[in-house]
């Protein structure tokens, strides 16, 4: 397909190209409505938000004072600030690793000859289309001291493992990671599946005839061909993990004692409960830097692969 278009593009006569350029030129103004809304809803407020990060603004006063990097320094002195950065990075990395490894294994399994593969695909993807609010409340109930998880452990004779899962700072953050994994592993699966289905069966058969077993076939044939799917999946889960808000906001409100705050929940509470707009803006700038760094790295990887 791609080759096809490339050939066609090269063959297009110069004269024709000049003519359609004329038409596209005449409709340059098609860009204006989209650009206006984009500037209104994204560019202008993002620039203002970045400026707020250098002020002590409380959201009400008319004359915010310029305070330089004080708000950023405050992240270091605020125990919640450091915890939220640690949690955000932990969630993003853990979700990325777990979701992609398990997602790939599931994709390989449902790409095989098993008879239940279609129904499994539909079921495992289903949570992706459910709102995070519903998912969060559902799991909050499962994690309660007399909820589904503890009852199941009890029934399986593992009553000693009973916990107040979300009330314990050591387990709460991992509970959130499990929820995000459950919700989005189907997304990874689907992208890996699309990649797997692009691999012609003849190549795998040829490798099998040459004596390659299933593991060898995966590592030497499938894995290199899946590289773009891996990059896209890692990018999606990493950036989604960095921005995580809904599930935490619903399940723990950042608690117990701030132990599960992410940067996004801390932005929300500082801005809309505590009136610390300047501090919230500084946190948002830090989050943006994380997201930008992750995106640029991924983009470079993708560009390298496509060469």
């Amino acid at each position, binding site marked *: 397909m791609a080759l096809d278009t490339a050939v066609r593009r090269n063959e297009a006569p110069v004269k024709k190209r000049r003519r*359609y350029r004329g038409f596209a030129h005449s*409709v340059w103004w098609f860009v204006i409505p*989209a650009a206006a809304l984009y500037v209104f809803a994204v560019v202008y*407020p993002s620039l203002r938000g970045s400026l707020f990060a250098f002020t002590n603004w409380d959201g009400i006063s008319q004359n915010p004072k310029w305070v330089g990097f004080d708000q950023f320094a405050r992240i270091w002195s605020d125990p919640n600030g450091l915890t939220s950065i640690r949690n955000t990075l932990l969630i993003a990395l853990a979700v990325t690793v777990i979701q992609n490894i398990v997602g790939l294994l599931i994709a390989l399994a449902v790409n095989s000859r098993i*008879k239940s593969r279609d129904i499994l695909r539909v079921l495992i993807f289903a949570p*992706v289309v*459910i709102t995070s609010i519903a998912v969060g409340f559902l799991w909050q*109930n499962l994690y309660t001291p007399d909820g589904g998880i503890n009852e199941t452990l009890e029934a399986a004779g593992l009553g000693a493992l009973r916990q107040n899962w979300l009330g314990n700072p050591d387990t709460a953050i991992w509970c959130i990671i499990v929820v995000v994994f459950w919700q989005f592993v189907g997304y990874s699966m689907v992208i890996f599946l699309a990649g797997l289905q692009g691999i012609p069966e003849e190549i795998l058969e040829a490798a099998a005839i040459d004596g390659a077993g299933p593991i060898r076939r995966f590592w030497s044939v499938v894995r290199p061909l899946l590289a*773009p799917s891996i990059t896209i999946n890692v990018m999606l889960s990493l950036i989604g993990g960095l921005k995580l*808000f809904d599930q935490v906001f619903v399940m723990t409100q950042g608690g117990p004692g701030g132990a599960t705050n992410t940067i996004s929940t801390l932005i929300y509470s500082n801005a809309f409960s505590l009136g610390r707009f300047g501090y919230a803006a500084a946190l948002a700038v830090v989050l943006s830097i994380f997201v930008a760094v992750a995106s640029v790295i991924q983009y470079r990887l993708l560009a390298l692969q496509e060469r």
Partner: protein
Amino acid sequence: MFRYTWRTGILEGFMILVGLLFLFPIYVLVILSLKAPGDQSAKLAPPLQPTLQNFFDAWQQGGLGGALINSLIVTVITVAFTVVLAAAAAYPLSRLGARWSRFTYLGFLAGLLLPAQLALLPLYQTIRDLGLLGTLAGVIIVNVGGGMPFSIFLYAGFMRSLPAEYEEAAAVDGAHAFRTFWAVVFPLVQPITGTVVILTAVATWNDFLTPLLYLSGTDQQTITVAVYGFVGQYGAQWNLIFAGIIISILPILIAYFFMQKYIVQGFAGGLKG
């Protein structure tokens, strides 16, 4: 060549177990919603006397009907504007090689790097100052503006691979610019329009933070905000809460099961572009 062997059988059995484990939360959701508050059955067992009373109560007490309609309005209008504006903007950006158009395209792409949290506070104030707090219009404007980078990215990538002969012929015939675009280019990009519609619709329907900011505490709520408020109000009455949650996710689940092929394609295909 690769046939169903005893190994495949073992994999089949294992994957069915995985599937059941995966469904466990949904099982709990359903059985709890069907239990009366005083139900005597064991916690994880199906109800002895299943009842739909929780669903009636949740529907009436949570105002979920109105919230569902609001969600539908916000989703439909957001999708319509996103498709038209993004497709129109992507067209000249994908066809022109001029410096301003490349610069503008990169400007849109930069939006992919900016998390919504950065714009959150100033945008909230602007919407408030414009008197749009508590209106669906405010949410729609924020959604459409915020959705431009990704949708334009998808459209522009697709349009670059389209030959220009058709629109050229139409333009030579002297058709009006927007009509040419609408009648000739837009139908050709239908596959990517499907992707944009699906991704935008699912994201908008499920969105929580934007409607929470702009609509909470007013009588115009979307379904996610209504469920959030409903849970806050009914605290530990999980039977009732779960019935409300099922009502809130049922429309999108029904849509998913009927159109799962397209929806899955949208999610898997949108990102390859």
